[in-house]
C-alpha cells in the first residue's frame, strides 16, 4: 500500500498516448509515452487510433511498473476529454471508463489545454502566470481571470507547430521538423521578408506558410538564398508575432509571471524572445521542463486531482468526449 493517494492520468488527444502516475501531493511517480510517427503526411486519425489501441495496455503496465505500483493502488482516474481528434479521444475515455468501473474508483475528464497550464504551474512552482501555449495543435495566450482561463490571443487559422511541421514536410525535412528547422535557422542571418500578421492579440500563420512554401518553389531558391535562410526567416517572423501578442497580453493583464509551454516551448530562440519581454515587464519567466511541456499523462493526472479535490468525481454521463471544447468554457473551481 502506498501512503498517498495516487491518480492515473491518460493523455489521448493526438499523436501521444501518455500515461502518468501522480500522487495527491503533486509528486510524479511515473510517466510513459507512446508516440505515433506518421510515415508521410500528417496525423491520420484512424491510424493514430489503431496505434493507441494496440499499445495502451503496455504503456499503462510500464507506467505502473516504473512507479512500483499495482493497478489496485490507483485511487483516481483522469483522462483527456477535450479538445483533440475525436477517434483518439474516444480511446482514452473508453479505457478510463473501463478501468474506473473495474476498479470501482472515481473518474475525471480533463481539458488538455488546461492540463498543460496546471502541470506548468506545478513544475515551475508559479502561481498565476500569463501562459503562452504553443504546440502542433494549439497556439493560445491565456491567463486566469474571473473563474476561468481566459483566452487573450490565439491563432485564427493554423497553430505554430503545424506551421513548422507543414513547412518541414514541404522542404522534405524528416519528422520531427521543429528541432531541425531550429538547427537550420542557426546557420543563417539572412532575413527574407515574410508576411507578419497580428490582429489585435490574435495571430494568423496560414499566409506565412504559403509565402515560405513559395520561397521553396521559386527559381531563386538555392541560388539567391537557401533552406537555412528560409528556416531563419520563418522562425524570426513567426516567433516575433508570438512574442508581440504575448507582450501585449502581459501589458494588458499585468501578470507578474510568464509560462511557456507546449511542444514548441523547447525552441531556444522562442524561449529567448519570451524571456526578453518578461524581463522588460519585470515578470518571472519559466519554461516548463521538456518532459512536461509536451503531451503527457502526468498533466492529466494532476489536473484530475485538482478537479477531484475541489468538485468531486464525474458521473458516467459527464465523461462524454468533447473534441471542440474551448478552455475558456470551463470553470476552474480549484482556483476560485
Amino acid at each position, binding site marked *: 500500500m502506498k501512503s498517498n493517494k495516487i491518480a492515473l492520468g491518460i493523455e489521448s488527444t493526438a499523436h501521444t498516448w501518455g500515461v502518468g502516475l501522480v500522487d495527491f501531493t503533486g509528486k510524479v511517480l511515473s510517466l510513459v509515452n507512446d508516440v505515433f510517427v506518421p510515415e508521410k503526411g500528417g496525423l491520420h486519425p484512424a491510424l493514430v487510433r489503431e496505434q493507441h489501441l494496440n499499445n495502451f495496455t503496455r504503456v499503462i503496465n510500464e507506467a505502473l511498473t516504473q512507479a512500483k505500483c499495482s493497478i489496485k493502488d490507483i485511487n483516481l482516474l483522469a483522462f483527456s476529454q*477535450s*479538445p483533440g481528434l475525436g477517434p483518439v479521444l474516444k480511446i482514452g475515455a473508453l479505457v478510463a471508463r473501463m478501468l474506473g468501473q473495474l476498479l470501482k474508483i472515481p473518474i475525471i475528464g480533463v481539458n488538455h489545454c488546461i492540463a498543460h497550464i496546471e502541470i506548468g504551474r506545478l513544475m515551475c512552482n508559479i502561481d498565476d502566470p500569463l501562459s503562452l501555449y504553443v504546440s502542433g495543435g*494549439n497556439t493560445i495566450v491565456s491567463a486566469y*481571470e*474571473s473563474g476561468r482561463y*481566459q*483566452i*487573450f490571443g*490565439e*491563432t*485564427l487559422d493554423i497553430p505554430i507547430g503545424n506551421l513548422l511541421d507543414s513547412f518541414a514536410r514541404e522542404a522534405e525535412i524528416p519528422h520531427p521538423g521543429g528541432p531541425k528547422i531550429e538547427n537550420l535557422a542557426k546557420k543563417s542571418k539572412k*532575413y527574407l*521578408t515574410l508576411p*507578419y500578421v*497580428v*490582429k*489585435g*492579440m*490574435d495571430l494568423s500563420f496560414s499566409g506565412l506558410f504559403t509565402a515560405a512554401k513559395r520561397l521553396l518553389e521559386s527559381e531563386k531558391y538555392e541560388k539567391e538564398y537557401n533552406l537555412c535562410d528560409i528556416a531563419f526567416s520563418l522562425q*524570426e*517572423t513567426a516567433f*516575433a508575432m508570438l*512574442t*508581440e501578442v504575448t*507582450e*501585449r497580453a*502581459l*501589458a*494588458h493583464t499585468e501578470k507578474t509571471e510568464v509560462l511557456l509551454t507546449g511542444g514548441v516551448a523547447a525552441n531556444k530562440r522562442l524561449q*529567448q*524572445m519570451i524571456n*526578453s*519581454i518578461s524581463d522588460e515587464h519585470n515578470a518571472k519567466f519559466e519554461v516548463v521542463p521538456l518532459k512536461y511541456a509536451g503531451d503527457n499523462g502526468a498533466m492529466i493526472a494532476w489536473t484530475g486531482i485538482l478537479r477531484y479535490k475541489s468538485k468531486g468525481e464525474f458521473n458516467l454521463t459527464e465523461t462524454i468526449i*468533447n*473534441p*471542440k*471544447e*474551448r478552455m*475558456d468554457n470551463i470553470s476552474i473551481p480549484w482556483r476560485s
Partner: protein
Amino acid sequence: MEKLGDKLGMTRNITKEKLLHKGAEASLFYGHWFGKEVIFKHRIIKDYRIEQLDRKIRTVRTLNEARALIKVKEYRINTPQVYEIDTESSTIIMKYISGSKLKNLIKTLNISKKKEIFTNLGRIIAILHINGHIHGDITTSNIILTSSEDIFLIDFGLHDYSDSIEDKSVDIHLLKRVLISSHGDDFKLCFNAFLEGYKSEYRERGNNAYNDIIKNISIIETRGRYVKKENRL
C-alpha cells in the same frame, strides 16, 4: 529620443518631461511642443526581434498611425492632433488629451451612461467603417473619455484601409473579445449598445451593409478553433 531633439535643433521648445505609460509596443511621454501640451508616442526598439524586422514594423506602424490619426479627422472623429512625425526614432508627437481610458472607467459608470457611451462608440466605429477605415485594435484601452464625455480614439498602429465585410467584422470581433475577457460582467450591455449605435449610424445613411457585417461576426466565431460542430455553419 536624443536623435529627435538633435534633428529639430533645439530642446528649448520641445521638452519631454515624464513617462506616462509604458505599453507593450510604445512608451508614452508627456511634454511640451512649442507651448502646447503633447504626448510623445515612441515605438520602442524591440531587442527580441531582428533589427531588419524591428525597423520595418516600427516605421510602418508609425507612418500608418500618423496617417490615420490625421485622415479620420475628416469625418469628425476625435483623435489627437498630430504635430510631428519622426520615422527615424519612430515617434509621433501629438496633442495631449486629458481624460481616462474607458478600460478604467467602465466599472464606475452607471447603466445608462455605459449604454450611452457604447452606443456612441458604435456610431464612431460605423463612421470609420463606412469610410473604409479599419482601426485594427479596438480595445477599451484605446478609447479615451474626456471630462466633457467626448470619445477619443487612439492607437491606430494596426490601422488599415479596407472595404471588405470580413475586415470590418474582425474589427468588431476584437472589441467583443476584449469585452468578454476583461469586462465580462458588462459585456452584454456594452456590446448590445455598441451594435445599436453601429446599426443606427449605417441606417441613417441609408446603408444596410451592417447586416452582413454583424452576421459575419458570428461566422468568424464559428470558424474559430474548437467550435462545436452543431454551432458550425
